[in-house]
């Protein structure tokens, strides 16, 4: 009796196994993802994984890439450069991935990118925003499909120029991202409006990453009596800052506020109606910015799958996979060198819109979206109304300004 039962279970499990294992003949395309999967910023890795898994499922259901099924391998960068590099090496040498995708932190990206050419494997960056990876440390293996800091901040400078504010200050995280955001903002705003004043170095606020009480910084910025404040805090830092700032009257309208990553859905979902209305916020991808059928389907499928609106990092990994697919189809093969050539100058339709990967520096020319936070009965979170779309070609610095000399 027991043997019979065992046999039945065995048969069933074998049938089940055959049933779920795809009957592919071709060898798989292996994609290796490196994101922050643990620690305080694990949110970002989780979002990226959600976007990636959805794209992989869609592509496999539709017949794969050139008939090859797609396999995804995920590694944790923990947000640290040495760990990220080890993860990438593991993906390349052990898993033998065909393409690397990922990287959340600018710090990680900047220190990992110079080692990529040794591995002779393309890397598509989806989140890390430092201009340097498609600038001073660019190389022919490294691409970026998302908006970088320079593009995002150039948009902020254009918005700032339209306000009456004459004196600007900043509050941003105390590492490369915060400092570079401020540096580029000053540069671009000076170009448009040369008479703009900026608050001196010792009066701007750069709270350390681990800060959870921002009151001292809020007080400091308010006391410097600016006309406008550029906020480049993000994630949990931004949530705490906005809550504590609203209580302390930071958003009472005494000055203009531009939040470069305020339209991130994870921030808006956490804050819900505690996000003040009428603030200018930006993002790398905003789920309502594009009315294309492609975007609508993406948002709908994502919502049905995860019960939330796609964040910019989910869109980043999703977009990277489709960019890879498009490149493979253009090249007609999945050979690494052929993919690199195909990615250069590639135009891909993504939910965010059509992106164009410049062959000279491998930076995607992609649209940016900003908007003013507004309540809407149809959404549990603040949405952007009015919304402003900036064309990628207008906000992407010229190649000769990026400092990239392709090797």
């Amino acid at each position, binding site marked *: 009796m027991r043997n019979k039962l065992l046999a039945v279970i065995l048969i069933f499990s074998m049938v089940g196994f055959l049933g779920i294992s795809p009957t592919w003949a071709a060898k798989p395309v292996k994609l290796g993802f490196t994101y922050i999967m643990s*620690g*305080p910023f*694990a*949110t970002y*890795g*989780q979002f990226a994984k959600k976007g990636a898994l959805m794209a992989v499922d869609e592509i496999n259901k539709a017949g794969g890439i050139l008939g090859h099924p797609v396999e995804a391998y995920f590694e944790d960068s923990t947000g640290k450069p040495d760990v990220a590099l080890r993860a990438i090496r593991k993906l390349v040498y052990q898993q033998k991935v065909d393409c690397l995708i990922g990287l959340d932190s600018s710090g990680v990206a900047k220190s990992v990118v110079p080692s990529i050419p040794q591995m002779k494997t393309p890397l598509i960056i989806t989140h890390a925003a430092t201009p340097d990876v498609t600038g001073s440390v660019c190389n022919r293996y490294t691409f970026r499909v998302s908006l970088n800091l320079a593009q995002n901040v150039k948009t902020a400078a254009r918005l700032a120029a339209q306000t009456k504010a004459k004196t600007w200050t900043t509050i941003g995280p*105390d590492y490369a991202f915060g400092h570079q955001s401020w540096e580029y903002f000053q540069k671009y705003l000076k170009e448009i409006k040369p008479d703009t004043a900026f608050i001196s*170095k*010792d*009066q701007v*606020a*750069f*709270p*350390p990453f*681990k*800060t*959870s*009480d921002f*009151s*001292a*910084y809020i*007080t*400091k910025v*308010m*006391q410097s009596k600016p006309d406008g404040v550029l906020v480049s805090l993000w*994630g*949990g830092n931004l*949530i*705490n800052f906005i*809550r*504590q700032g609203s*209580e*302390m*009257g930071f958003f009472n309208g005494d000055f203009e506020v531009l939040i470069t990553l305020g339209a991130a859905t*994870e*921030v808006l*979902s*956490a*804050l*819900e109606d*505690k996000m003040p209305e009428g603030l200018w916020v930006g993002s790398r991808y905003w789920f309502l910015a594009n009315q294309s059928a492609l975007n609508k389907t993406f948002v709908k499928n994502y919502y049905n799958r995860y019960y939330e609106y796609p964040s910019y990092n989910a869109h980043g990994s999703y977009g990277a996979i489709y960019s890879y697919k498009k490149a493979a189809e253009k090249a007609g093969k999945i050979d690494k060198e052929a993919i690199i050539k195909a990615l250069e100058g590639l135009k891909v339709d993504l939910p965010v819109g059509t992106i164009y990967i410049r062959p000279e520096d491998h930076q995607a020319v992609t649209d940016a979206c900003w908007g003013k936070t507004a309540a809407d009965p149809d959404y549990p979170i603040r949405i952007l109304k009015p919304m402003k779309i900036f064309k990628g070609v207008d906000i992407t610095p010229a190649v000769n300004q990026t400092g990239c000399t392709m090797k």
Partner: protein
Amino acid sequence: MESLVTNLLNGLSWGMLLFLISVGLTTIFGVLGILNFAHGSFFMLGAYLCMQVMHVVPSFWIGILIGPLAVALLGIVIEKLLLRKVYGRDITFQLLLTFAILLVLDDAVRIIWGPGYHVVDAPKILAGTIPLFAHSYPVYRIFLVIIGPLIGIALWSFFHFTRWGKIIRAAAVNREMAEGVGIRVPLLFTAVFAFGTWLAAFGGALAAPHQSVAPSMGESIIIESFIVVVIGGMGSFPGAFAGALLLGLLESFGTVFAGRAQMALPYILLALVLLIRPRGFFGREA
């Protein structure tokens, strides 16, 4: 004048949260001799469980009552099953064990509540702001400034005037002697650990309306609490109070007046204290 008062209140309210978490840390060290790395995770759990209770009963007061108690129960389990094995052993065992507990708790939180950020509302009576000179100041922060010293006084009175407080202090000074006069020390240790855990969780629940509830929220605060405990004197109760106040004020005034050097101030203070008075302000002679 306005900036002075605002900075003072900023520093005091943050200092009081630091005090709540440090006082549990220092008590556990003083009595059990354990350097508890997982203390920040109990702080985090306090915030999450308060939030979870509020999903069922939408009242902050019930959340802050039940949430930390649940964490204290977990503290009892951890003490009985794990910590007991490392009393009196080399400090590396304690560090490894409590660090492992930290990792497990952090992952558990991520699995149960997901990696996202959550926001907990302050109770109605403490929400909103009061006018402060030309600007406004959040009522909740003023509540923190008031409740911190009240809890401090209650704890101090407990340790100095009650029988149980005296027993705990006696056991901390000399375990063998305490056992010799008939005190059930293992039970006492469990109670003290649970109490320290409760204090951390209570701090976490109090912090919930003030900062976003997110995984690893304990990791950033644990470093500052260690600084507080070392400055004040390991195991010293008034030391935790003074250290937390000092650090809170140093951070608020330092941010405004010291510019970017502010980041280094807590560590400079720590180094100075270790050089001039290695046992901390209120530490006992080794």
